[in-house]
């Protein structure tokens, strides 16, 4: 039986961030994830690196936390962050007095917020609603959560951590009330095994309630579904927000060659968390509100709709469960519930993942009597160590790969593998081989999250056949080509189905003609 210092449950950004921190502090670390990395809320959000401005008026502490982490991530994850800046716009229907209060609150939280003339705002961001009556510029940015999580997982591995995807925790191993490990089931083969550690960390997002219950602790979570739409091209340069109290569908974030509007916020039952579907009513609302931010969205093709679940945690002192926080929740179950060897890290947000990892690892180190400082705020992530000189290789596919993997491209072997397989996102065979070798890829859906393969305008329609073949070959299992293809087509369909009209319906008909059995 394998023994570790720490086992982390959950392959979202919180889990991989904690794994990186633990590994950097020399702890023998195992991360287990029942599906693929970023399969939950991490892979289903805006991809917004908050400046904190959104929370400035309503939650000063979160705002201050965001701006600190925002500055750190721009430094250590430069390859995952695009410094777009953001606008908070006031429209004729919004309260004009809110802007002053907003700017004041931002400054008090340490966020550099600057009022700009609407004419100037239109010049900076031509897609913005031209009826705007006010605008404030803030240091919001766009972040690729897949890339960020992947870089954290890679750095954790480089520093000795083991990443075990497609393994479900089925039970806790306890000795005299203490958690000493977990029983795992291989999600694919069904094979069971046991691993042990001094500390086990619950970083399972919304599924953390179930994990805690399995260990004998109660955490009350409120699943809040957030739906988003991704558009076929990038209409905006900057993040566009509404300058008012946070509401539905009031953020438009540019990312790579697309843009994303969201979100809705609706309580959903736990049973739905594993299979979120976006409804027609949600699509309508997102589109209507999105068009108020950037009117050209009305004529822009929607690629897909998706939804994530925020892990909102009910305050311990509120038995109704109505009072929730967007802040970080770190629970020491030894002190709280008398379960030594078990902690939970939850709540928070993508922007504060690093801090969540730091807080969790501080607690782990305390329990293990390890006295090592956190270095995740200083050490750049793999890929973000330095800027390469792209002039040396000017092929578009090379630039695209560098954009996705930064210095990771130095480990790619283009010899005989420079063929571009995904033409929307310019993914080569060499990049697929790299992802298979270094980034825990088990199937075509995993590969999509590591390389953006099939994420472009054709949604895999043109490439998935040849990519399935290439991946099966790289993984050394040529007989699984068809299985990869089917799984991928089903996954793409899930996002396309809610937005099947206009050009998306045309694309859908074509995709069906190519791939139906």
């Amino acid at each position, binding site marked *: 039986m394998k023994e570790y210092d720490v086992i982390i449950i959950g392959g979202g950004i919180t889990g991989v961030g904690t794994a990186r921190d633990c590994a950097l502090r020399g702890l023998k670390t195992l991360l287990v994830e029942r599906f693929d990395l970023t399969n939950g809320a991490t892979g289903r959000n805006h991809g917004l690196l908050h400046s904190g401005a959104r929370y400035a008026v309503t939650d000063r502490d979160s705002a201050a936390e965001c701006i600190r982490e925002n500055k750190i991530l721009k430094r250590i994850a430069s390859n995952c962050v695009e410094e777009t800046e953001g606008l908070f716009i006031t429209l004729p229907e919004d309260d004009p007095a809110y802007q002053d209060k907003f700017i004041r609150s931002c400054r008090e939280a340490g966020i550099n917020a600057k009022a700009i003339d609407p004419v100037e705002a239109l010049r900076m961001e031509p897609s913005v609603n031209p009826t705007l009556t006010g605008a404030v510029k803030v240091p919001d940015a766009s972040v690729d959560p897949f890339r960020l999580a992947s870089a954290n997982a890679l750095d954790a591995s480089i520093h000795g951590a083991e990443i075990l995807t497609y393994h479900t925790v089925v039970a806790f191993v306890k000795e005299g009330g203490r958690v000493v490990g977990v029983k795992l089931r291989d999600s694919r083969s069904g094979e069971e095994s046991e691993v042990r550690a001094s500390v086990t960390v619950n970083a399972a997002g919304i599924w953390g309630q179930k994990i805690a219950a399995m260990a004998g602790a109660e955490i009350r979570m409120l699943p809040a579904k957030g739906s988003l739409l991704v558009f076929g091209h990038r209409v905006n340069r900057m993040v566009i927000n509404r300058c008012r109290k946070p509401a539905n569908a009031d953020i438009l974030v540019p990312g790579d060659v697309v843009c994303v509007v969201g979100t809705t916020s609706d309580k959903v039952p736990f049973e739905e968390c594993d299979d979120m579907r976006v409804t027609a009513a949600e699509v309508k609302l997102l589109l209507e509100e999105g068009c108020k931010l950037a009117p050209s969205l009305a004529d822009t093709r929607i690629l897909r709709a998706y939804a994530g679940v925020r892990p909102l945690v009910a305050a311990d002192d509120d038995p109704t469960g109505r009072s929730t926080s967007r802040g970080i929740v770190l629970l020491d179950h030894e002190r709280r519930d008398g379960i030594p060897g078990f902690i939970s890290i939850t709540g928070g947000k993508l922007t504060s993942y690093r801090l969540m990892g730091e807080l969790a690892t501080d607690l782990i180190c305390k329990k293990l009597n390890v006295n090592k400082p956190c270095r995740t705020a200083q050490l750049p992530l793999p890929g973000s160590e330095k800027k390469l000189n792209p002039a040396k290789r000017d092929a578009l596919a090379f630039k695209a790969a560098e954009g996705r993997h930064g210095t990771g491209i130095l480990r790619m072997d283009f010899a005989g593998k420079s063929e571009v397989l995904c033409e929307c996102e310019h993914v080569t065979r060499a990049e697929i081989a790299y992802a298979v070798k270094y980034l825990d890829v088990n199937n075509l859906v995993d590969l999509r999250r590591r390389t953006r393969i099939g994420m472009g305008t054709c949604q895999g329609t043109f490439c998935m056949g040849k990519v399935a073949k290439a991946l099966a070959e790289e993984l050394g299992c040529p007989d699984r080509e068809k299985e990869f293809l089917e799984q991928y087509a089903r996954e793409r*369909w899930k996002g396309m189905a809610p937005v099947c009209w206009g050009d998306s319906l045309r694309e859908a008909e074509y995709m069906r003609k190519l791939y139906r059995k």
Partner: protein
Amino acid sequence: MRFDVIIIGGGRAGTEIGAALQKSGINCLIVAEGLSINPSKRTEFAACGGTLLPGDSVVGGGFDGAVLKNVRTENLVGTVLEADFFVLATGKFFSGGLASTMDGIYEPVFGCDVQYEPDREKWVNPDFYADQPFERFGVVTDDYGRVSVNGVTIDNLYAAGEILAGAVDIDGSAALVTTQIMRRK
């Protein structure tokens, strides 16, 4: 310019009907927008004397009550193309025979009556590999293969091929329309 029959759409249904009519001495024009999976059918049609207008599309028609008198195309500005009979064989969504918005499905050239599910959530099946309801949407025709506009049957406008509602039967629908036109000509 006048023809016996004008066929809109140069895919399988359109070229099959065109070739069969042309071989019987009925003078046909095919307006063929875009590429064809099987271009040899277009060549065959032209080889037996048919007129092929490639790369153009019909943008609308002139009606006299329930009779279609002529059509106009995008490229031949100012030219009116007249015929005794017309065939709509423009396919489904991908080829532009049917179009859709968030609120509904329509036939973009003449506004022919279309059969579809009004609730958009029922246009698709959540299982990609299951039958997809939208693939059965299409224009409705009478027993003779004629379309209707706002509930009124157009006496000389037929539809064939994938544009039709229901299960796809390209050869069957093409044969019906060919027979009907031959009988009336």
